C-alpha cells in the first residue's frame, strides 16, 4: 500500500509539469495586457510600454518560462503583478474560506443526498421516488447564483436569520463561522446533492436486486439494516467516485458562490487574477488546484480499499 501511495505521489510530478507548461503557454498566447490594466485608462502608450518592460513582460516565452520554472523548483510561486505580494501569501489568505465552504457543502450534500438516494431506490416508482428525482432535476437545472440570490432574499433580507454575505474565520467562533456558510453551502450543494442522490439511487437499485439482499431480508433483518448496512456499503464505490469527481464541480461552483456571497476565497481570487491578467497568480492557483485534485483522486482510490476489501493495490 505504501509503495502504491509513493508511486501515485511520484506520478503527480509529470502531471504537474504538464499542467504548468500548459497553463503558462495558454496565458502567453491569451490576449490581454496586465501593463495596460495597471497603467489605467489615462496612461499614455509609452507609460504602458515602460510598465510592461519593468514587469518583464516584453521578454520572450522561453526566458519567462525558464525563470518561472526555476522559481517553482525552489518552492517560490512568485509575486502577483498587481499587488506585489507573494502568490503563496495571497493563496494562503484565501484558502480557509474556500476549504470551509467546500467541507460544509460536502458534508451537507452527503448527509442529505445519500438518504434521499437510498430512500428513492427503496421506494422506487412511488410518488416519493418521483418527487426526489424531480428535485434532483431541479438541482441540476437551476444555476447556483439563482439559488444563492433566492436564499439570500428569503433567509437574510426577509427573515433576517442569516447574513447576506461575508466570511468569519473559525478562530472567531464556530457559530459565526458556520452562520456565514449556511446559505452559500446550500446554494453550492444543490447541484451536488442532485448528483449524489441520483447516483446513489441508481447504484442502490442494482444492489437491492442482488440475492444477498433478499437473503438478508429473508433472515428477518430490519429494513434499515438491509438498506444502510448491507446494500449501501456495497453501493459505496461508485458513490465515492462521484463524490471525488464532484470536488472539481465544487471548485468551479465556488467561483460563482463566493462572488454571490462575497466570500473572500480562492474562487474570487481566480476571477480577479484572470480579469487582470495577473499571470503569476493564475499560474499559482491553477497549479494548486491541480495538485489538490490529484490528491483527492488518490484519496478516493485509497478509500475504495476501506469499503471494498476485494480492492488491493
Amino acid at each position, binding site marked *: 500500500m505504501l509503495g502504491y501511495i509513493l508511486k501515485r505521489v511520484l506520478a503527480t510530478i509529470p502531471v504537474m509539469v504538464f499542467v504548468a507548461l500548459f497553463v503558462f503557454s495558454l496565458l502567453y498566447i491569451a*490576449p*490581454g*495586457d*496586465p501593463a*495596460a*490594466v*495597471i*497603467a*489605467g*485608462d*489615462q*496612461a*499614455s*502608450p509609452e*507609460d*504602458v510600454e*515602460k*510598465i510592461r*518592460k*519593468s514587469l518583464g513582460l516584453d521578454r520572450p516565452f522561453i526566458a519567462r518560462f525558464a525563470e518561472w520554472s526555476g522559481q517553482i523548483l525552489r518552492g517560490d510561486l512568485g509575486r*502577483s503583478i*498587481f*499587488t*506585489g*505580494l507573494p502568490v503563496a501569501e*495571497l493563496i494562503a*489568505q*484565501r484558502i480557509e474560506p474556500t476549504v470551509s465552504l467546500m467541507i460544509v457543502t460536502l458534508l451537507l450534500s452527503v448527509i442529505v443526498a445519500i438518504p434521499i438516494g437510498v430512500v428513492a431506490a427503496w421506494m422506487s416508482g412511488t410518488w416519493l421516488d418521483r418527487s426526489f428525482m424531480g428535485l434532483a432535476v431541479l438541482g441540476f437545472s437551476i444555476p447556483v447564483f439563482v439559488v444563492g*440570490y433566492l436564499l*439570500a*432574499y428569503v433567509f*437574510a*433580507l426577509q427573515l*433576517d*436569520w*442569516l*447574513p*447576506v*454575505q*461575508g466570511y*468569519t474565520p473559525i478562530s*472567531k*467562533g464556530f*457559530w*459565526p463561522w458556520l*452562520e456565514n456558510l449556511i446559505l452559500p453551502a446550500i446554494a453550492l450543494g444543490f447541484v451536488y446533492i442532485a448528483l449524489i442522490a441520483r447516483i446513489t439511487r441508481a447504484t442502490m437499485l442494482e444492489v437491492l436486486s442482488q440475492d444477498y439482499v433478499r437473503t438478508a431480508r429473508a433472515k428477518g433483518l430490519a429494513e434499515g439494516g438491509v438498506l444502510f448496512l448491507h446494500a449501501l456499503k456495497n453501493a459505496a464505490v461508485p458513490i465515492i467516485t462521484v463524490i471525488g469527481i464532484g470536488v472539481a464541480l465544487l471548485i468551479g461552483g465556488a467561483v460563482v458562490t463566493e*462572488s*454571490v*456571497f*462575497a466570500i*473572500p476565497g480562492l474562487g*474570487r*481570487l481566480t*476571477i*480577479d487574477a484572470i*480579469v*487582470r*491578467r495577473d499571470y503569476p497568480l493564475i499560474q499559482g492557483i491553477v497549479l494548486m488546484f491541480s495538485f489538490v485534485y490529484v490528491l483527492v483522486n488518490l484519496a478516493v482510490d485509497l478509500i475504495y480499499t476501506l469499503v471494498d476489501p476485494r480492492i488491493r493495490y
Partner: protein
Amino acid sequence: MSITRRTVLKGAGAVGAIAATGRLAAPAVAQGASVLKFVPQANLANFDPIWGTQYVVRNASQLVWDTLYGVDDKLQPQRQMVEGEEVSSDGLTWTFKLRPGLKFHDGEPVLAKDVVASLTRWSARDPMGLMIKAIQKDLVAVDDKTVKWVLSRPYPKMLLALGKAGTPVAFIMPERIAKTDPFKQIEEYVGSGPMKFARSEWKPGAIAVFEKFKDYVPRSEAPMWLSGGKVVNFDRIEWIIMPDPATASAALQNGEIDWWETPLSDLVPVLKKNRNIKLDIADPLGNVGSFRLNHLYPPFNDVKIRRAVQMALSQEDYMRAVVGDDTNLWKPCPSFFTPGTPLYTEVGGEPLKGKRDIEAAKKLLSEAGYAGQPVTCLVAQDQPITKAQGEITADLLKKIGMTVDFVATDWGTVGQRRASKNEPGKGGWGMFHTWHAGSDCVSPVGNIGIRTGGEKAWFGWPDNPAIEEEIAKWYDAKTLDEEKAIIANVNKMGMEHVTYLPTGFFLTYQAWRSNVSGIVGGPTPSFFGAKKA
C-alpha cells in the same frame, strides 16, 4: 465513537436552539471602536497611487497620504500640507513652506527632502508633472521645512498641478519610499494622512483596512473635496470588496455595510424604497462617455466619415442605455468638457445637438467614398458602461450603412488591443468605447482624449497641430476669461476635427445607511467629517 440517531438529533436540536435565539452578531474587531464599512467602486488590487492610476487607488490613497494642495468644490487649489508659498516676480521660482506638526505614520516628521523625492517620482508619471519637469532647473530642499522649485519658464498652473484630483495625484511619501522607480510598485505604505494602512489585514480582492492616525493634525477649515480639515470620526474604515452589485445592495439593506460607493442604476429604485437608506449623487463632476476613433486607418482617417457618424449619433440613446431612464443621472454633452464647471463650453458642439440626421449621414458617407470597409468595434462586455455603449454604436453604424465588425471581448483585451497601431484587420481596431471621469475633463490637464499630438496622442492617435497649439496656450493663460476663450476654441476645433465623440454626461448615485451623516458628493468618496450614529 459511534454516531447514533439520538446523538444526531441532539446535535440538530442544539443548532436549532442557536438559530432560535436569533442571529449572533459577528465579533467586533475592537470593542467600542467606531467602524465604517464601505464598499468601494472596485478592488484595491494595488496600493501605489503613482504606479497604478486607477481611481480606486487614488481614493484609498487620500486616506493614507497627504498632499501639498487639494482642490475645493470650485476646483481651486487650497493649501493642505503647506503653510504658505511664494512665487518670484518673474514666475520662475516657487518656494513652499510646510506647516508644522506634520508627521508620518512611523513617527518621523515630514521633511522637505520627502517632498522633493515625492514630487520627483510624481512628475515622472503625471502629464502636468512631465510639463514641469521639462522646464525644471532645480528642485531642492532649502531646509527641513522649505522646498524650492526653479523653472526655466513660468508655469502658472503650478498649484493646480499639485492639488488636482485627476490621477496621479501628487501624494507626499517618505523619501525612502518615494525613491522607488516610478514604473515599479512601492512595497511600504507609510504616509502622513489621517489614516494608517493596516497592511497585515489587506487581502486584495476582499478587504482593505484603514486605522485612525492619532497624531494627524487636520487643518482648521471645513473639509471640501480634497481640501480643508481631514477630520476622521472613525477608528477604523473597512473597505469591503463586493464584486456583485446585488450582494452589495442586499448587504446595505441588511445593515451589514454602511456605505456603497457605486450602486448599479438598476438597483437604485429598490434602495430608494428603503427608509433606512439614503441616496445622493456621488460625484457631481460625473463622467463623459467616449466613442474613440482610430485616426490612422480607413474609414475613420477621413474627417468626412467621422463627421457622418457625429451627425447621426444620439447622445440620448447612449445615456439611456448606460444609466436608464432616470433623467437626474444624465444630460447631453456637446462638449469635451465637464458640464457645470467653469471652463465648460458648447461652442462648436452643434453637430451633436438637435434632431439626428441618418439620411444626411448616409449622404456624407457616400460623398466620402465609403466603400464598406468594416469598422472593428472593440466592445468590453465585462464593463456595463462600455457594453451598453457598444450595442448602441453597432446599431448606429449599421443604420447609416457602415459594415460593423463587432468584437465582443473583455476590458483587459481592449486595453491591450487599443494600443496596437496595426490595421484593423491585422490586430488593430476601428473604434472602442470608454468613459472619462468628469474630474479629468474640467480642463485640458487630465483630458487626454482631446489631445491631437499624432503618434504621441492617446489611443486613436488624432493628429492636429493647431489644436495642440491652442491647448498649449491654456497652460500660459493668466485669467479665467482668457482660459474660457481658449477652451471654447479647443472645443470648436476638436468638434470639427472629430477628435473623438462624446456620448453624453452621466452621473452615478452613492448610497448609505441613514445612521451615517456628513457624506457629501465629490470627485472622491468623502470620509472627512462623516459620522456614524
